[in-house]
């Protein structure tokens, strides 16, 4: 009985913290429609700041608390709202998500920049020196009592503000109908700012209360708050009372798990992953958060890739890889060789997120599965293991997709993130698991496993150069596959599904199969990337496939342009070539280089089509001016020969590689008028207005009608006769 009470108190304390954090999340989500992934990170930053004030600078506790909770917290919230979130109105779910995920990455990097990781920073709970309060059967620490008391005060306070204060009523009114609040004369920006100020302050409060338990560590503290997200989901991100109820259920479950789960090497990880497991279950059992029938007219628009462009892209990638493989030293090859396998993982996002609009934050988890398969089945270099890696990852993808089918938008993102956490916190860390003594399941063998190089026809491809070329060729082939899908029937279905699930369902499209197949396809591609990644790393561990890396890859692929294969290459190049290169050239940048991916993602709100789109626009005149293009290729080839014959060194080669396309683009720009006209004639299809604007921007033609019929799959119907 004592034990039960003790862990009830543990659970209620957790519940109190989750309730505080989750209510802040709900507040910002309902009033501005943006799910703030970085909400937990704000709490993390607050905990660090409080620690700095209180224990490094020695401020009195009340002063430190007032400054963090009532000054910095609200100010930071207002800053987020005015500078970042306000610009996101009218963008898609994906863009909103990327911006808040990037904010999370940025804040973790910022915390690590200010408070170097790896140093112990003890943060005692409140009144930790005092004796626990005796409750008869059990005791409760002051920190626990204060935490529970604060949560009750927050609940009462929020209720008062939201039902008694006029501005609080206006916050709830804005949830119902934002423009009507303005007709009433309420200032909508003021309402949003207040919501973010209060929300961030609540996150800060929760962060300070929770940090003494797990300790001050930026990444885990930011993600630990997943449980609070589960509580918010319990309240469907809208209802505060349900959110509090959810927090109590989740807190108690966690408390009892801590108390009663048997001590066992298989289950320790489960305790760490339990918030994610609970979130996953909550997402599955909650009544369906309705089909997304509402049209969000987005600012993004991805053109159909042309066949010539696709082949050109693939050839360029392979040639580039060959050049790198023959000029770089082995250590450099190992560093930069990661670009292509990671690029394949990024490619897996293009059909799933870019075409189908299904968000997945666990692509590196699928890659991890592919890597494990490669390590075990590919022992000795068996290339068939690559096939198994694809198939098994695809099967797992389909299994994840099954429960995810009923989720969309932010709920799907949370579900896949929870899945990633379950894998990297628990399953990937499992020791060898013997199934009824029949066979062993051995994932990372409780640490790391080595991976053999692929062997074909008695030749082992174990040098980094060859491995890089293999990965690059695979990348090019997968890119062609993705483009082929985009141009085909499946691609059109996926795009249609992204535009409106409800409309597709009424057109008789089988949503379940479409979703399942795109999830499996995407997971299979990620598994392939992971398998190749594993052979290049030669030894893999769970840390190679963590949620944070999935988040980074997701965010930067969207920044590059998630609707096109170029976006995937952009992401892999920026994260695994540009950043290491920057650190090599400028060693002191290693301190702040981690801020860049997050920073880039935060800037996305300004350009939802992605950076590659702009790059492509910039190069269009060059692509059209065939003579200049040919001259440039000759020049690049010449530089390559000079490099191979050691006439010039790597640096000069790189400079030339950058210089030639720039010069060529300028040259093409000078001869532009002729060239662009020619291009306009040739690529009618890509330069034309999008389908839905035909008849508005220019008159309908018979060809348009046929194309529309094809899009809608009406070929067999007698539509023309009706007309």
């Amino acid at each position, binding site marked *: 009985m004592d034990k039960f009470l003790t862990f009830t108190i543990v659970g209620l304390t957790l519940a109190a913290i989750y309730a505080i954090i989750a209510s802040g999340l709900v507040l910002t989500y309902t009033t501005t429609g943006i799910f703030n992934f970085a909400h937990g990170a704000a709490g993390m930053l607050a905990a660090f700041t409080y620690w700095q004030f209180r224990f490094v600078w020695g401020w009195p506790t009340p002063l430190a608390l007032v400054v963090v909770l009532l000054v910095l917290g609200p100010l930071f919230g207002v800053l987020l709202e005015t500078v970042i979130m306000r610009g996101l109105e009218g963008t898609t779910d994906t863009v909103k998500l990327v911006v808040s995920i990037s904010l999370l990455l940025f804040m973790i990097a910022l915390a690590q920049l200010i408070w170097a990781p790896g140093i112990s920073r003890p943060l005692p709970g409140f009144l930790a020196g005092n004796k626990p309060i005796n409750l008869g059967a059990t005791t409760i620490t002051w920190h626990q009592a204060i935490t529970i008391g604060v949560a009750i005060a927050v609940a009462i306070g929020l209720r008062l503000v939201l039902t008694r204060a*006029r501005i609080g*009523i206006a916050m709830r*009114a804005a949830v119902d109908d934002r*423009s*009507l609040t303005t*007709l*009433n*004369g*309420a200032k909508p920006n003021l309402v949003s700012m207040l919501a973010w100020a209060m929300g961030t302050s609540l996150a800060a409060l929760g962060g300070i209360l929770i940090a003494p338990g797990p300790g001050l560590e930026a990444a885990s503290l930011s993600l630990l708050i997943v449980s609070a997200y589960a509580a918010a989901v319990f309240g469907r991100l809208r209802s505060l009372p349900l959110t509090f109820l959810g927090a109590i259920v989740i807190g108690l479950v966690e408390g009892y798990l801590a108390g009663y789960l048997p001590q066992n090497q298989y289950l320790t990880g489960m305790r760490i992953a339990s918030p994610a497991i609970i979130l996953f279950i909550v997402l599955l059992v909650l009544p369906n958060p309705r089909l997304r029938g509402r049209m969000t007219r987005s600012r993004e628009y991805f053109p159909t890739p042309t066949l010539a462009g696709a082949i050109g892209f693939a050839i360029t990638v392979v040639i580039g890889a060959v050049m790198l493989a023959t000029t770089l030293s082995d250590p450099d090859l190992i560093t930069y060789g990661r670009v292509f396998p990671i690029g394949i993982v990024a490619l897996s996002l293009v059909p799933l997120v870019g075409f189908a609009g299904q968000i997945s934050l666990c692509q590196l988890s699928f890659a991890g599965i592919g890597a494990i398969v490669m390590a075990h089945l590919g022992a000795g270099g068996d290339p068939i293991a690559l096939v198994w890696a694809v198939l098994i990852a695809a099967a797992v993808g389909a299994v994840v997709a099954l429960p995810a089918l009923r989720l969309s938008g932010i709920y799907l993102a949370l579900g896949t993130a929870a899945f990633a956490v379950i894998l990297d916190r628990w399953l990937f860390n499992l020791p060898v698991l013997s199934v009824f003594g029949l066979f062993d399941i051995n994932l990372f063998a409780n640490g790391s496993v080595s991976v053999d190089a692929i062997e074909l026809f008695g030749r082992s491809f174990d040098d980094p150069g060859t491995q890089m070329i293999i990965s690059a060729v695979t990348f090019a082939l997968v890119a062609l596959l993705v483009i082929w899908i985009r141009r085909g029937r499946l691609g059109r279905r996926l795009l249609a599904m992204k535009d409106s699930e409800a409309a597709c369902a009424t057109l008789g499209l089988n949503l379940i199969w479409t979703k399942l197949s795109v999830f499996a396809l995407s997971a299979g591609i990620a598994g392939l990337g992971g398998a190749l990644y594993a052979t290049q790393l030669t030894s893999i561990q769970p840390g190679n496939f963590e949620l944070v890396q999935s988040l980074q890859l997701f965010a930067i692929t969207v920044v590059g342009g998630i609707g096109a294969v170029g976006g995937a290459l952009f992401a892999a190049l920026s994260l695994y070539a540009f950043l290491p290169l920057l650190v090599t050239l400028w060693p002191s940048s290693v301190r702040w280089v981690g801020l860049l991916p997050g920073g880039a993602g935060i800037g996305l709100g300004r350009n939802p089509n992605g950076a590659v789109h702009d790059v492509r626009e910039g190069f269009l005149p060059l692509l059209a001016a065939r003579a200049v293009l040919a001259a440039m290729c000759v020049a690049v080839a010449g530089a390559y020969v000079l490099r191979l014959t050691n006439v010039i060194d790597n640096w000069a080669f790189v400079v030339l590689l950058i210089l030639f396309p720039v010069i060529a683009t300028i040259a093409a720009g000078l001869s532009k008028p002729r060239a662009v006209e020619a291009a306009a004639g040739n690529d009618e299809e890509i330069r034309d207005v999008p389908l839905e604007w035909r008849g508005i921007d220019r008159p309908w033609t018979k060809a348009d009608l046929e194309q529309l019929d094809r899009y809608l799959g009406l070929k067999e119907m007698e539509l023309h006769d009706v007309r």
Partner: protein
Amino acid sequence: MNSLELRGISAAYDRIDVLFDIDLVVPEGNVVALLGPNGAGKSTLLRVAAGLHGPASGDVLVAGRRVNGVPPEELARRGMCLIPEGRGIFPNLTVRENLRMMTFTGTKLSDVEERSFIRFPRLKERIGQTAGTLSGGEQQMLAMARGLATDPALLLLDELSMGLAPIIVEELYEIVAQVAREGVSILVVEQFASTVLGVADYAAILVQGRIVRAGQPHELAEDLSKAYLGA
């Protein structure tokens, strides 16, 4: 002095043009009816006037001052009151909280309640009820209450009658007539002309984004049938 004047207003959603070079005035103390078929752009015109939707070109003048770009909450504070199409209420707020929202333009809560309850005693009985659970007529009364309680100088009404029984529509327009007699300028959009022409001093017919006819109500009667039948 004109309470509202639209000069050469054009408006569009994305790339769909909806209004073309509209000129319209609401003289002070007058009721102007705006009629027209579905999709003509009536609601858009009111949204432009209220500052909810920026015009592509043209000027909006309120009490003689150009107000292009002035945000809607500011216009509301200067005495403009748009009761939008559909139910202009907050369904998840109680009736009392809905009334509380009407105080942002500077009217005291006690005044808001008093003025609303005189016209619509039924709202007083339902004060604690969630507005979304009121009947359609009661919801429209609650929406309309803002036009009475906040003492506006210019009232814009968008299809008060939508989905309501004829007897309730008649009640509502009686109240509109009373408000008009108190000197409030009113621009009222209505699909069903007969109800509104009785109250209006002037009327205009909007078809496909253009004002095709304007004048006194009796002059318009026969043009109306043409406009609706699309002849």
